[in-house]
């Protein structure tokens, strides 16, 4: 996030243009094709579970002692289907991307494995299987993040990601071990014994799983791996991680905390809402001031997962406060937003990948002018950005509208918690949506429109067909969310039916051609809005064409440059200058480190030779929370090091001591 007018460090990324050797093209096709095939199977399986009902599968021999058990229900099914759909688009895209970027064999093998891991997590029917699938997913994603491990930034991001994801896993591991000690190994056993679990155990499990799953979903303050790993990972992997893997964090929260342990006390829902709101606002603020395209998208993931968590918390809180109808709206909003986020974030990351592979640039301050050079990618990224901004005709509109409706129409009456939490949430969501539009306008306007700001952007070429095909699939999904959420209605109704404590007991919102909300006054029709807008645009175009015949011929004059001779690309808005007013407003939160250095001529201090402006935006949460923790751990590690003095005798005595303890304990 460093920007300087005169001395800008260029992010070292692989250069544009294909290198001549094409040794692994067959492998790339195989890897991408396999990923897409697994994704298609996942989509089919997920949909069949959602509509066909629950299925159980137990493979006893696969894992010693406990075996592997799968338990498919509509909730898991919808996550499997979403992951599968993302994988189809990413798999097709990866064929072209892996060829163009000359992937090694290792990431190509890992890509289908990663997708498999992600598909197994929501299918898991027992604690053991769940943890196994979770680790497969986490390990495979780490390998993929490290694809370009020869760059320092990638290795640093990989280390950060590895530590955070494993710490999160430890939290989940402890929580699920505690849970299975209280209720049994399989989720169905836990569900039947849920009533016997003590409140203390419930609280411990909730807090630990919120930490573990929250870090996977990128919620504050455990989001720090996202803006590091997402930009440094190859773009198809970023898309998979951001559109499918973070969903697993949300899945964990729904499955363990809200479905198995629910209904929880009031403060569970409230906690989820607070974490969600803070994540959403902070994520979108960071996205608005980010200058790295992929980092912007990564922070936008934190924002959207925050919104989903807020909606989940609202559903839990409303349901436990005796308003199941409104809770059903909030829960539908959460699921719909999760799914639409998967669609538009896949598209946005794949678009960013096309830009990166065509220009070698992620820095928005150096991009621009891509609309002429990469028209198809520009249109496709535009559809994704529109979706992320939550405006009508965008994929995120219907879900954000539902979320607003559920928050606005919550019946509070004498309930002080609801009366306070809901209006504050409306404020947080409104701020988030507004700033989200700003972030996406910046990403699209500065990144793709106007004139190129560097030679790399000037030399951009359109992405190959397979990459465009992958993006087109994701764009088609975005259009479905944007104009026809009616197609998602039956799926969400089936999922809601298995979540009785989250509003499933009441009639959910009817996602027809017109979205109707039973119990509250509110209806909207994205399809009709889209139709009316298209008709309005067509009418004005036709009228303008018709009017042109009565006008004198157009005259070409030079562009107005405020009296100067010619416009140059340096006169354009950059991402930094576009976000500067916002950065000024939120100075206390963002804490930018600005450095202005003025060099005078030797003859007179009134004459200025040059001005160097440098601004650096570090994540304030990272600076406040992570640096002290890392410092403390390092200090403690120094003490532990004294026990590792390199003497083989000492180590042998450690081993003997350990053996002795084990013998004593296991006696």
């Amino acid at each position: 996030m460093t920007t300087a007018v005169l001395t800008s460090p260029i992010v070292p990324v692989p250069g544009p243009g294909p290198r001549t050797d094409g040794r692994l093209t067959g492998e790339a096709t195989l890897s991408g094709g396999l990923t897409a095939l697994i994704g298609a199977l996942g989509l089919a399986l997920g949909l069949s579970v959602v509509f066909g009902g629950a299925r159980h599968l137990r493979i006893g021999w696969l894992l010693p002692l406990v075996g592997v058990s799968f338990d498919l229900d509509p909730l898991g099914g919808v996550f499997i289907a979403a992951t599968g759909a993302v994988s189809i688009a990413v798999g097709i895209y990866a064929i072209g991307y892996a060829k163009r970027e000359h992937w090694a064999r290792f990431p190509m093998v890992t890509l289908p494995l990663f997708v498999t891991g992600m598909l197994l997590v929501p299918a898991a029917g027992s604690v053991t299987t769940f943890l196994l699938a979770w680790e497969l997913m986490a390990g495979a994603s780490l390998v993929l993040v490290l694809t370009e491990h020869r760059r320092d930034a990638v290795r640093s991001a990989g280390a950060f990601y590895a530590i955070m994801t494993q710490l999160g896993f430890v939290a989940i591991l402890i929580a699920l071990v505690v849970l299975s000690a209280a209720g049994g190994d399989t989720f169905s056993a836990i569900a039947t014994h849920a009533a016997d679990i003590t409140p203390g155990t419930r609280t411990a499990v909730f807090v630990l799983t919120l930490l573990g799953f929250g870090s996977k979903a990128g919620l504050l303050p455990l989001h720090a791996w996202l803006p590091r790993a997402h930009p440094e990972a190859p773009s198809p992997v970023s898309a998979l991680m951001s559109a499918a893997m973070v969903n697993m964090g949300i899945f964990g929260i729904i499955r363990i905390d809200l479905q198995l342990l629910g209904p929880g006390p009031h403060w569970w829902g409230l906690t989820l809402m607070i974490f969600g709101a803070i994540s959403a606002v902070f994520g979108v603020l960071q996205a608005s001031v980010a200058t790295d395209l992929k980092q912007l998208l990564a922070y936008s993931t934190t924002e959207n997962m925050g919104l989903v968590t807020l909606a989940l918390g609202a559903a839990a809180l409303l349901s436990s406060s005796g308003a199941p109808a409104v809770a059903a709206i909030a829960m539908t909003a959460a699921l719909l937003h999760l799914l639409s986020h998967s669609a538009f974030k896949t598209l946005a990351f794949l678009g960013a990948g096309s830009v990166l592979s065509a220009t070698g640039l992620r820095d928005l301050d150096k991009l621009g002018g891509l609309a002429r050079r990469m028209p198809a990618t520009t249109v496709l990224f535009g559809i994704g950005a529109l979706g992320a901004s939550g405006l009508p005709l965008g994929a995120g509109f219907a879900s954000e509208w539902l979320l607003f409706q559920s928050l606005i129409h919550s019946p509070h009456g004498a309930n002080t918690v609801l009366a306070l939490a809901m209006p504050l949430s409306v404020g947080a969501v409104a701020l988030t949506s507004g700033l989200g539009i700003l972030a996406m306008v910046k990403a699209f306007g500065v990144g793709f429109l106007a004139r190129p700001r560097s030679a790399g952007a000037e030399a951009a070429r359109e992405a190959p067909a397979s990459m465009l095909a992958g993006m087109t699939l994701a764009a088609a999904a975005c259009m479905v969310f944007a104009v026809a959420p009616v197609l998602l209605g039956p799926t969400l109704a089936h999922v809601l039916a298995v979540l009785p404590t989250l509003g499933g007991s009441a009639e959910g919102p009817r996602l027809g051609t017109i979205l109707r909300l039973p119990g509250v006054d509110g209806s909207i029709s994205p399809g009709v809005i889209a139709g009316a807008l298209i008709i309005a645009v067509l009418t004005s175009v036709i009228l303008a064409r018709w009017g042109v015949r009565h006008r004198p011929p157009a005259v070409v004059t030079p562009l107005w440059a405020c009296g100067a001779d010619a416009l140059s690309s340096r006169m354009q808005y950059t991402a930094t200058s576009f976000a500067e007013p916002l950065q000024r407003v939120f100075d206390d939160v963002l804490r930018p480190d600005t450095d202005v250095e003025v060099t005078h001529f030797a003859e007179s201090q009134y004459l200025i030779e040059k001005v160097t402006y440098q601004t650096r935006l570090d994540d304030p949460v990272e600076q406040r929370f992570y640096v002290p923790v890392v410092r403390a751990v390092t200090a403690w590690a120094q003490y532990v090091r004294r026990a590792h003095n390199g003497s083989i005798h000492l180590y042998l005595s450690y081993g003997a001591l350990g053996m002795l303890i084990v013998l004593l304990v296991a006696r």
Partner: protein
Amino acid sequence: MSWLGKIRRVGPMVEPAPAAPEVTLPPPTGITGSLQLRHVDAGSCNGCELEISGAFSPVYDAERFGARLVASPRHADALLATGVVTHNMYQPLLNTLHALPEPRIVIAVGDCACNGGVFTKGYGVVGPVGDVVPVDVEVPGCPPTPQEIITALRKVTGR
């Protein structure tokens, strides 16, 4: 609500409008009372600028006669040029004129803009505005009073 009472007591502050002058130049767009002006200081001492801002102040209120200052030449019908044209402002003045959509007119305000004034033989001077761009209306005076500027503008706006 004392401010309401104050408004009522003070009444309108604007100078009464004198009789309309005879129209010497038809409005460039053919619509009377709608003259959008882009002002360019080609090298003025800022005396004329003070008087122009006076002319558009609430006291003289040129806008009630249909003339208006705009921020971009793309929005303008006429160029309001002040000062003698210096070497530094020669090209920007031409660029601004070319940025104005046709039909357009040029109004030169002040002696310097009309004939060079006291700066005629200066070392950094190209010449009066008329030497650089075709001038349609001239407002003499060093500086012209707001009333004179308004009278010249009314001759174009037709109000």
